[in-house]
């Protein structure tokens, strides 16, 4: 394997001690970062360096590090999850950066996601929206056969696409209106498209939208920025479906 030249980078990182404290940017330098390493591995290198220097390491969210859990959440150089397409921050690799580049790392910004510490924001609002209606009720008993109810391929595919939303919050972070419509639309769609989800569909659409409004997320203006930055490429067609589900449900009241 040929030896790749390590990257030397200047990092501008948002540091904030707590939710109520005023934050500020701190500038750090990291050197000899492998272009093959992931962005979070680069953050690990920075933190080890800070610990050796006796400083407080940078707090950031991460869990599976394989792009499926939705925990990582950094706003890097003007993009949620950084400059690569259809990936989460953990799947962003350092080969996307140039030697000598300055990298600005910020937390998600929106009224719905207050900063807890440094780059970690409180995304429990998404859990509250899910608890308001993002589920189906099933009777206990024997497990029904998976293919007992025939479902058109198109519906199954679209439901699966919607279900690939990992609830990371990149849509809210990107939206000029701080709107959570793409997330709520995906979570309503993944159930609304399937027969098992139809039972509670009307109630679900109304209560999830009500909860989203209550938690201070903005009103969607269909700019489509969310679907561009979404690491899972969730389509805004889901937002049209949510509008349809909600309006039809309200008309029946």
């Amino acid at each position, binding site marked *: 394997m040929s030896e790749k030249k390590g990257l030397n980078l200047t990092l501008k990182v948002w540091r904030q001690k707590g939710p109520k404290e005023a934050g500020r940017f701190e500038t750090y330098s990291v050197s000899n970062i492998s272009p093959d390493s992931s962005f979070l591995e680069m953050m690990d290198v920075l933190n080890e360096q800070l610990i050796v220097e006796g400083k407080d390491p940078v707090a950031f969210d991460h869990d599976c590090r394989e792009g499926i859990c939705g925990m990582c959440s950094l706003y890097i150089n*003007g993009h949620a999850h950084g400059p690569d397409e259809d990936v989460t921050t953990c799947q962003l690799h350092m080969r996307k950066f140039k030697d000598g580049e300055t990298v600005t790392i910020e937390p998600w910004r929106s009224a719905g996601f207050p900063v807890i510490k440094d780059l970690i924001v409180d995304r429990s609002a998404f859990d509250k929206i899910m608890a308001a209606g993002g589920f189906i009720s099933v009777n206990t008993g024997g497990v029904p056969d998976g293919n007992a109810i025939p479902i058109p391929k198109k519906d199954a595919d679209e439901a699966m696409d919607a279900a690939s939303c990992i609830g990371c919050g990149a849509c809210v972070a990107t939206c000029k209106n701080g709107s959570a419509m793409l997330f709520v639309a995906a979570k309503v769609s993944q159930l609304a498209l399937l027969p098992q989800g139809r039972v509670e569909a009307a109630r679900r659409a109304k209560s999830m939208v009500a909860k989203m409004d209550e938690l201070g*997320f903005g009103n969607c*203006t269909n700019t489509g920025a969310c679907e561009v930055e979404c690491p899972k490429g969730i389509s805004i067609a889901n937002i*049209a479906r949510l509008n349809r589900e909600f*309006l039809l449900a309200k008309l029946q009241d």
Partner: protein
Amino acid sequence: MANIFSYSIGRKLLMSLSGLFLVMFLLVHLLVNSFLILDPLLGTAEGEMYNAGVHFMTTNPFIRIMEPILAGGFIVHIVYSIILTIQNMRARGSKTYASGNKTPDVEWSSKNMFVLGIALLSFLAIHIAQFWVKMKITGDPRLDYTVEGHNAYVLVHETFQITWVMICYVIGGIALAFHLSHGFWSAFHTVGLSNSIWIPRLQKISVVIAWIIGLGFSTIALVQYLVYPLS
């Protein structure tokens, strides 16, 4: 049902329906305006068709009933745009991104609908003062009664000879085109009449309709100024 407007999607529904209603009005308005340049093309007497159009619009009972409803449409669209924009700014939060927002492929007009709306509202104020107020309230010597009614053509024709007015109308038309190029398809999306197949179709239809309406108004003002100077 009654509390639908307390939901975000309900408020957006109002924006979308009032917006589509205003687009219908614009199409009728553009049709009557097109008579301004049709008279010379068809060889009828100067202003004959246009004055007949204005006469119809001011005397037809259906149009008279629609007038206050139209005003209501404007008010709903403007008031709700202000409410929604304030809520959205609040939801965005006070902290902005130091590295900016570099999301590619986002339509410029979609991010600037409120600014475009303010530009259109300023234009509307000038437009109403120049024509509607004179035709309906204060009157104007140029509106001398003809056999059929107002001679609106002379008022319109003379007003368009003023350079700054013509520039205002051309810019107003272009601002309208940008506003509608996002607004039209977005209205369908908001009422749920859209899906992955129809989003690109609606977006294309939207651009075509927006520029026909916007450039239509601009062109009529420009033609009045350039091609038919005061005789």
